[in-house]
């Protein structure tokens, strides 16, 4: 499995990929995970490559070979979409965070429709999951990543009990409950609209 996660610094990409890597390890598989980010994440673009299988060599995914891309933001979805394999699945949060030069008017803003069209044109199999909005509804925007986790859990081979275990291990005790809720929310959000199995 080649799974690429992308987003903006501070969105919890790293915790999300930690959880996935641990799930794979709990399932007894070889796993490698690699974060790619410049300058210690001062709001820059962040990606994490996670690969699991019987034996994994490269910690980086090759372009055009990701089975799943999880994007926490739309522009980032488009930025890394060339990593997706032709039969791959893109799950993205329709959240929009413009980079600073766009925000302050130094660079032109890409219209929403254009962005959407370009995403759809390159990822035949794609689903928008409003994870950030759902997390805000739950009262904590920081659980956006766990909502996403719930959504993609439909496509991964791990038993549900593993998720609970790993969340318990990695999340501070006072946040376990809200993360479990977020996970259930994510699962429900995607269930409504499951894409056809490949």
């Amino acid at each position, binding site marked *: 499995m080649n799974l690429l996660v992308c987003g903006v610094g501070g969105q919890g990409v790293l915790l999300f990929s930690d959880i996935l890597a641990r799930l794979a390890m709990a399932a007894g598989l070889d796993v490698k995970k690699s974060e790619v980010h410049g300058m*210690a994440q001062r*709001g*820059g673009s962040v990606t994490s490559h996670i690969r699991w299988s019987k034996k994994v060599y490269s*910690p980086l995914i090759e372009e055009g070979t990701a089975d799943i891309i999880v994007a926490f933001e739309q522009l980032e979805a488009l930025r890394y979409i060339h990593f997706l394999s032709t039969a791959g699945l893109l799950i993205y949060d329709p959240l929009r965070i413009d980079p600073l030069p766009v*925000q*302050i008017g130094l660079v032109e803003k890409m219209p929403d429709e254009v962005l959407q069209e370009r995403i759809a044109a390159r990822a035949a199999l794609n689903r928008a999951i409003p994870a950030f909005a759902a997390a805000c509804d739950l009262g904590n925007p920081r659980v956006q990543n766990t909502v996403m986790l719930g959504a993609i859990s439909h496509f991964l081979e791990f038993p549900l009990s593993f998720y609970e275990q790993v969340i318990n291990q990695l999340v501070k005790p006072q946040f376990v409950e809200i993360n479990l809720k977020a996970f259930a929310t994510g699962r429900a959000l995607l269930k409504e609209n499951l894409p056809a199995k490949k």
Partner: protein
Amino acid sequence: MNKQLLSGDEAVARGAWEAGCEVAAAYPGTPSTEILENLATYPDVYCEWSVNEKVALEVALGACLAGVRSLAAMKHVGLNVAADPLFSAAYIGVRAGLVIVTADDPGLHSSQNEQDNRFYGLFAKLPVLCPSDSQEAKDFVKIGFEISEEFDIPVLLRLTTRVAHSSSVVTLNERAPKPPQGYEKQLQKTTLLPAFARVRHIDLENRLDRLKAYSENTPLNRWELNNTDIGIICDGVAYQYAREVFPDASFLKLGMVYPFPEEMVRNFAERIKELIVVEEVDPFIELQIRALGLKPIGKDRLPRTGELNPRIVRESLLGSTTKVTPEPNIPNRPPALCPGCPHLGLFYSLQKQKVIIAGDIGCYTLGALPPHSAMDTCIDMGASITFAHGADKALSANDPRPRLAVIGDSTFFHSGITGLINTVYNQSNVITIITDNRTTGMTGHQNHPGTGKTLMDKETKVIDLEKLCRACGVENVIKVDPYRLQETKKTIRKVIAEKKPAVIISQRQCALLAGKQGRTKKVDPEKCIGCKSCLALGCPALSYANEKAVIIETSCSGCGMCVEICPKEAIG
């Protein structure tokens, strides 16, 4: 047996602990920072942030000569700072083992260059080990200590960003403590007077010969003989990429790239039809193979810049099959200063002044980019003050623009202080601004001599920057609060007008440590005239939509800087 998912840095820390390491010193620098941060969480290891890498290496050398296994860690450019003791350490050797970690940054994720520190092995005459994943990172630290003790020499462990910051499965072991050997005076070994050093050099060459023999036989360098049409020689993470792209080829995987195992390479090459070298950045292995008279494929096809990855290896060596191109024209997302960052206030106050500003290494280097464009140079740690000094001497009275230097607090302690003393001693007209945010912001908030805390979380004496600068001989030392924009601007103007050397300490805690500073601010759309004045602050919480300024509520730290800027009092 216990297995865990560890990053390369975490694995190095674990390996050092398991090997009974007792003293470790470092200066933070991406991608090496997490080594000491993790090692400090294990009991029984003394860990410190030294003020710079030279100090760190000398501390570790001192500790190993005093009889305990020790480690020094730094990023690649940090080893330049420590190069002086590095070369001497090779002559002196060790008592208990000494491992020096250099974490190189191919691809320049967070550095000013992408030098290949394997060459330091060749240059300083030290063995170099290159792990290719976390398990090896852990194992190689331990083997490094053994080699160090057996051959009486410090060992260089070279990581790269992709090894340091990727995680893979590691088998854990227990700590095997070493009985300390105590200190013993060994004058001729440890005192590099010319007469003694000459003898030590001969000894070093002998040690290298023995290391060469070791390198020919060590399991660190191993064959994987498969189809012999293609044979690949590689090290570090390049091995992983090459294995991925050529699953059937034969491999010579080098874990020890210096001294170079010539015989092993010759024997391997004899069985191979086509010899390929896959390595990142410089042709370190390739040069040594060519010196044997062999002609491998290597940097004639593979890039000399940036990181490798499976695609680059595939396209360079097999020709591209299906080219995948990224989407064009997506706005970049460069890193930016945080909402409420005190540097924003300082850079805002520096905007549009006719000055020459020499910058330095840290978060504040980002002030070189728009909207601030408040910096002309960024060279290496500490080079701001010295650059400004040189420029002042060169321009003398012919260029009226004042010469400023901007340097962070941690960087000032690292190597700015010598530059400041130099400006006083050699009398230049430099205005030094110390952006004192009470931490090492860029690498994730490590303590330093100004914070009152050590790496091991002990209370310690705080070095007072103001007194320190005065003691260096600067009479004009002024403190400002960068959150007070008008005041800061006025002070800077005044100091510039005085045309005398000065230090301005711009002091405010890093916004990430300070957290929420007050009520989230809002823009009143009735009052906002869309003049964009506030956007010049460069705060990421401020944006612009439908001809009005907007504050993104979830990002705003409530610092209030923007309130001061708005001419219509629309922000509050």
